[in-house]
């Protein structure tokens, strides 16, 4: 542990693990692959967020809302085009390249498709401990093997499986390997991008249980990105709902589920087919689909599908503001108590 780490550690009780300040990730849109730039895709368009240690923060939204880009930007797979990312109070924009590398190692990502994210030509032992090698620390082959065996045990696989290749495992087992790889670097935060979406429900529940156990054991902070609201509601302490690159509602998971305050979240929640025969809710069926993030509407991005929209929604972009303590919406007409 370096002196710098100690300094940061000393007030870790109050410093959030992750802080985003007006984070933006814009992509130029070209005419063809090499043509002139003809527009801007605002994948992440001003996200401000603070995630304390040990929290599971759920990020939900439909395809194209920018949730995956946000995750990729946090872990350094995309470079932000505006705003700040602070990791335990340290601004990544001003950190040295070597410092950045060491921070990014602490914040691994677990992806949706375990097979695509695991090198098919590498044995499990090498996949799991790859992060240790990159780190440059002098770790002997025997130590790496021992560490890998321990990690497999932690995620519920058998140490005898160390010398197998990814294709010899089932989808759920592969996702466990992805999680073991993430744990190898002693992470403080794991970004899980649709980590259980490709799994069958019976296996998904096993992986969710595993993630909860690991969080308790290692005091992990999770950013859990998924389109499946049932899963996100279940696992998250707090949820941010994204729409066209922005967070439009932010609240503790229970408060959000009990009373979503803005129309998009209300429609999104009511659209989940629930396994319930006693009280079938009236479903809000939205018309249309999310507009293109290349050419978003003026004002509120949701107004074209919103049943509450007024003139102000066309002219003014709503800011993310508290409707009650800890519960914010970006909406001109949120439900209030």
């Amino acid at each position, binding site marked *: 542990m370096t002196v710098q780490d100690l300094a940061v550690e000393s007030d870790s009780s109050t410093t959030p693990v992750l802080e985003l300040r007006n984070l933006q990730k814009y992509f130029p849109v070209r005419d063809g692959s090499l043509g002139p730039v003809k527009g801007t895709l605002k994948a992440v368009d001003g996200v401000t967020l603070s995630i304390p240690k040990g929290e599971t923060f759920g990020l939900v939204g*439909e*395809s194209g809302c920018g949730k995956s880009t946000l995750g990729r930007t946090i872990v350094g797979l995309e470079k932000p085009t505006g705003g700040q990312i602070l990791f335990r109070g340290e601004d990544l924009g001003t950190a040295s390249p070597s410092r950045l590398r060491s921070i990014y190692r602490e914040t691994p990502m677990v992806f949706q498709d375990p097979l695509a994210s695991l090198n098919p030509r590498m044995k499990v032992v090498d996949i799991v401990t790859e992060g240790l090698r990159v780190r440059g620390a002098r770790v002997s082959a025997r130590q790496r093997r021992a560490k890998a065996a321990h990690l497999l045990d932690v995620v519920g696989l058998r140490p005898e499986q160390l010398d197998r290749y990814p294709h010899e495992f*089932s989808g*759920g*087992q592969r996702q466990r390997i992805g999680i073991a790889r993430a744990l190898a670097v002693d992470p403080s935060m794991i970004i899980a991008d649709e980590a259980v979406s490709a799994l*069958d*429900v*019976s*296996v*998904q*529940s*096993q992986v*969710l*249980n595993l993630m*909860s156990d690991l969080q308790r054991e290692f005091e992990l902070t999770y950013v859990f990105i998924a*389109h499946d*609201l*049932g*899963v996100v*509601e*279940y*696992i998250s302490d707090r949820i941010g709902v994204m729409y066209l690159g922005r967070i439009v509602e932010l609240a503790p*998971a*229970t408060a959000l*589920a009990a009373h979503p305050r803005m129309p998009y979240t209300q*429609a*999104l929640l*009511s*659209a*989940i*087919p*629930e*396994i*319930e*025969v006693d009280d079938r809710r009236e*479903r*809000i*069926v*939205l*018309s249309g*689909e*999310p507009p293109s993030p290349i050419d978003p509407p003026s004002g509120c991005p949701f107004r074209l599908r919103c049943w509450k929209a007024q003139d102000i929604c066309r002219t003014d972009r709503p800011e993310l503001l508290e409707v009650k303590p800890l519960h914010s919406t970006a909406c001109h007409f949120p439900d209030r108590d």
Partner: protein
Amino acid sequence: MTVSTPPRPVAEQPLLEIKDLRGYFRTDNGLVKAVDGISFSINPGASVGIVGESGSGKSVTAFAITGLLEPPGYLAGGTVRLEGQEISGLSDRALQHIRGRDIGMVFQEPMAALNPVVRVGQQIAEAIRAHQQMSRKEAMAKAVQLLRLVGIPAPERRIRDYPNSMSGGMRQRVVIAMAIANEPRLLILDEPTTALDVTVQAQILALVKELRERIGTAVLLITHDLGVVVDVCDEVIVMYGGRIMEHATVEQVVRSPKHPYSVGLLNSVPSGKLKGQRLKAIQGTVPSPHDMPPGCPFASRCPEAFDRCLEMPPLQPQADGRRVACWLHVTEEAPR
């Protein structure tokens, strides 16, 4: 609206009757019995859901019913009757006719059913003219009506669109329009909303329910998502390892599942209500299709398994009308 159907005589027989259906695959690693002897029937106008995880055989069931199993897959046994007439074993040509006219089909990936270089109006018109005597002009007019029926705005203009210029949700509406173009008595939907966002899924499911009421077609909906079945269907068939585990009303399965697999499946679904609780996950993984254990396919993961489970239990009718394939629910010894 000309899409409405004339009232049909009250049917004495089921619309679709499946007996001991088997869909097998020849692979390098041996025979895979993807669907291994299932029987069920669908009444006219009914809505039946098949729910199962990957490898349960749910999609192969749809292919086997409609004669779409392609090598290395083949129909290894069983009968399929549509309104009493056996359709398994008919020629490809005859089956093709049945598929467009009597059975409409919608799959997960709309582009699999659409030709990317043909305008959507023309594709629908061709689907109509393949089964009905109608001029091009009339068929095109009907295509416009169908697109309106499935909720596509400004259909007079959209008929000239190519599928590629439409969103996933709109394409799936076009496929549904094609599937119902000839007023089929049965609409088979195989994971119709799996590739779609949840708000678009809600639109498509609402459309399916509305169409069922308006044109009186029966629905067979195949999905991994029990919530989708609960939303759309009255009956549910729970499949695992190529077999039917439980066949009951949706209400019966949701309120009081009987088969241990149905119980496990319901307990596995995470939701806000279970917050803070450990999910009661089903242990283990689906056995490899190359290496199915003898007897009940769920036995190796079943918390209640006992030695009897090495033998496959019959799908036994229960007092409350449902059918369950589990030795715990076999009330009396079947005669040998």
